[in-house]
């Protein structure tokens, strides 16, 4: 079987999974969740008002229609309008995605690059003082709350030293930099600890394999062994770890966006949750479901490319 037909087949199998995810979302929002109109109208609302609002929001539609609407939105990306802002949800998402991705993508690529390099380096110097030092720093970085980084960053580096903007956002290339730099750095610091520890374990698992001894017996240098033999074998685990995080990058970081006043998807979702804006939350749930499914497929395809032992069926 060729790679293309493998990819097509995998994509075909995605359809029932999407239907399943939609069903889950349907259960959560249309069956088990409490009536959103009560929180929207307050506790003094009359029966008539509630009924009227339910009719207006389409909550009285038969259940199968409500499910069908969710499925339709998963394929057309037409999520309707927000209950609170009345805006087209797809437009809101498009607007929010750019600020979110301006922060998460650079942070993601830099942190992967940094973490993989550091872990190759410490795996090379395994067992030495340097290795132990790096592991210690990782654990230390991980044990500090993310709020500390945000507050110290904003107070000291942005407010006292004036290196960055404290919060806010501006569009366009050079203007945006001072706003996003600090969030990016903080995300990198937050991910480097766990990432290095994970990659280091993966590399060390490989270093003690027999094929590494064979490579040494051929006269290869340690560096060549690390970068060629060990890294390619470690790629399989690294890919899973890395690719499955991409959907979350698209959705933005709730905490960072709300602290830095970034008008991204994270902030948007948070607002929607606070105002029981079901269509927006549903749209985000559908989108993150689809993204996770698609990136799962991408991971599987990458396995085939990286690991010759994985069979195409």
């Amino acid at each position, binding site marked *: 079987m060729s790679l293309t037909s493998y990819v097509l087949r995998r994509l075909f199998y995605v359809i029932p999974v999407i239907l399943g995810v939609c069903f889950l979302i349907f259960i959560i929002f249309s069956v088990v969740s409490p009536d959103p109109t009560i929180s929207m109208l307050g506790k003094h609302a009359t029966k008539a008002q509630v009924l009227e609002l339910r009719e207006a929001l389409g909550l009285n539609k038969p259940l199968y229609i409500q499910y069908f609407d969710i499925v339709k939105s998963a394929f057309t990306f037409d999520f309707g309008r927000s209950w609170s802002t009345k805006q087209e949800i797809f437009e809101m998402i498009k607007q929010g995605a750019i600020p979110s991705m301006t922060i998460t993508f650079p942070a993601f690529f830099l942190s992967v690059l940094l973490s993989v390099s550091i872990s190759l380096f410490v795996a090379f110097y395994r067992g030495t003082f340097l290795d132990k030092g790096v592991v210690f720093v990782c654990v230390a970085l991980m044990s500090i709350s993310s709020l500390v980084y945000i507050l110290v960053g904003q107070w000291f580096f942005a407010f006292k030293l004036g290196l960055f903007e404290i919060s806010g956002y501006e569009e366009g290339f050079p203007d945006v930099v001072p706003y996003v730099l600090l969030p990016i750095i903080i995300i990198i610091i937050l991910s480097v600890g766990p990432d290095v520890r994970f990659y280091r374990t993966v590399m060390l698992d490989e270093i003690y394999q027999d094929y590494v001894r*064979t*490579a*040494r017996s051929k006269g290869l240098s340690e560096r060549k062994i690390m970068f060629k033999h060990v890294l*390619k074998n470690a790629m399989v685990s690294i890919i899973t770890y890395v690719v499955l995080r991409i959907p979350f990058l698209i959705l933005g970081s709730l905490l960072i966006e709300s602290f830095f006043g970034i008008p991204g998807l994270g902030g948007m979702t948070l607002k929607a949750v606070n105002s029981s804006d079901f269509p927006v939350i549903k749209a985000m749930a559908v989108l993150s479901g689809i993204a996770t499914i698609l990136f799962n497929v991408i991971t599987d395809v990458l396995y085939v490319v990286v690991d010759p032992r994985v069979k195409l069926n």
Partner: protein
Amino acid sequence: MAEKILEVKDLVVEFRTDRGTITAVNGVNFEVFKGQTLGIVGESGSGKSVTALSIMRLIPNPPGRVAGGEILYRGQNVLDIPLDEMRSIRGNKIAMIFQEPMTSLNPVFTVGNQIEEVLELHQKELSKQQRTEKAIEMLKLVGIPSPEKRVHEYPHQLSGGMRQRVMIAMSLACEPDILIADEPTTALDVTIQAQILELMKKLQTEMGMGIIMITHDLGVVAETCDDVAVMYCGQIVEQSDVKTLFGHPRHPYTKGLIESIPSFDSTTGGAKGRLPTIEGMVPSLFDLPSGCNFQNRCAHVTEKCRGPHGEPKLEPVSKGQMVRCFHPLS
């Protein structure tokens, strides 16, 4: 007399473990000659692999370290040379085949790539094209059918026997002076075993390398070796040419090993029809007895063996035959 290419002198290798330091190889001496095969035999844990890895300087450190002795390759002590220089010897002048054919190749590179890699390293004058041709040629040499196709395959597409052939092809690609084969056939079934040994003998005649054949199977020794060293608890207990060893073993341990070869017609010991094996357990390296290491399993043990005069030395008993025993068999 053939040219001497390798000489191991008083080799001592230690491992530091949680339970204390063990001496896995304790004062081993042997020589390897061009075009000849030295067998190293012994039960599991006797220090065969550790000896082999020391020659390649591949003892994992920590926990291991070569604590003493010399390894002279063409007169030069490889334990003293810088690592760079050692790398230009590994895979080029001294090559090794490992005990584990299933895991010794890298699963994510084609076998061609892995053979070409060693050529790229040591035969820089070859072009990419020539390396591929040489890889195919090597696969053909070790008897892999349709080598033009196999170079592009990955290790998991090959059987254990085929993988070991690939390892042999890889180790011989640079026509080394010395090939260390650490139980090259143990993990393979009997027919494949015979083929691989046959192949190695044939290639040795063609290329003239010296071979160190490590095995726990005296049958393999009888078929392939010129000289033999029998190891027990990190020491050589008997050493001679192969004919003398089988014809007239002087150490009770060697005799026991020979008698436990399945096809060997034994005349002593054991109930009728039962395979004689050596009774008792190999002592732990953490807790070696004083005196002779073999005392607890030996039928000829005397008070002298139990320690008052120290341990027995490896001493000549006849021309070219050395034995580490207070009471060598007559």
